[in-house]
């Protein structure tokens, strides 16, 4: 890949991503009246994030085991009231610990 190709790739990525965000945001000026669609949109963030996390977390580390442990540890930490950074830190430390033990075994 040369520099010219890089900048075309970059422009394609950036423009497509921007339009996906800006077009619906600008076009929808009024509040939706329908309780069904309002409920639908209320569920979207949670279902999107859940679908992004499982099963991807199992494949994001060296072994499925460390990914699975990170998932469990993060859910437990969150249930005990840890915030965004706390839960993320617990997940990181868990992966480091499990992958570290696996390396030693």
């Amino acid at each position: 890949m040369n520099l010219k190709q890089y900048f075309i790739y970059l422009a394609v990525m950036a423009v497509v991503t921007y339009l996906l965000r800006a077009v619906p945001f600008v076009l929808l000026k009024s509040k939706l009246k329908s309780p069904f669609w309002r409920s639908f949109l209320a569920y979207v963030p949670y279902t999107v994030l859940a679908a992004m996390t499982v099963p991807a977390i199992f494949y994001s580390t060296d072994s499925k085991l460390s990914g699975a442990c990170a998932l469990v540890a993060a859910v437990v930490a969150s249930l005990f009231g840890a915030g965004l950074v706390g839960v993320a830190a617990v997940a990181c430390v868990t992966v480091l610990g499990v992958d570290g033990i696996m390396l030693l075994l």
Partner: protein
Amino acid sequence: MKFTKGVKDGLPIGIGYFAVSFSFGIAGSKFLTWPLVTLISMTNVTSAGQFAGLQIMADAAGTFVEMAIATFFINLRYSLMAISLSQKVAPSFGTGKRLLLAMGITDEIYAVSMIQKEPVTPIYFLGLFTLPYAGWSLGTLTGAVCGEILPAIVTNALGVALYGMFIAIVVPQMKVHKPTMIAVAIAIACSLAFKFVPALSGVTVGFAIIICALIASLIGAALFPIKDDESLDAKNEAGEAK
């Protein structure tokens, strides 16, 4: 809804982004110089989309059309979030401000915006976007410069921070709102099906996420409609007290 409150609410996201984009910087440094890797983060501000884009750039056979299609499907969820966020913003959020700040619609910034009790103002949203943008750009820069100094075991561990943050957003809501738990369970079951059912395995990851979120949210809305904003806001009081 002040700028400073936005900055404060954005701090944990910024720290998390620094860690995640650090691993993006490391991945990119394998075949791009650090200014080029950093520029991707500064112009995109996406996680999964950038990682996929990097793979396409690295692949000699990757075409510009493929880049456009992959970016479109992986990032289509931002359109869903933009629609949802448009219902939550204050009337002062005019067209010009929407065009300028649309770039700030990311998974976490969107999620934090949605759990606010008041309508989201442009100045609050700008504050909320500031530290995550700085964290995302500087994390990429640091990761790309550090390159291969850190061993894979450390970068793998840092990479999981992204999912930790997602879990931290979803779990508290599931705890207090049973229908959300059911909707999330449907989304996960659907997501697993795309991964493990052979007939569905041809669907790209980005498209699978959209289908899963649509199915789960439609079922949630059909079976458990939310009467008013109160029922969904009540859940986040603990989160907001932080």
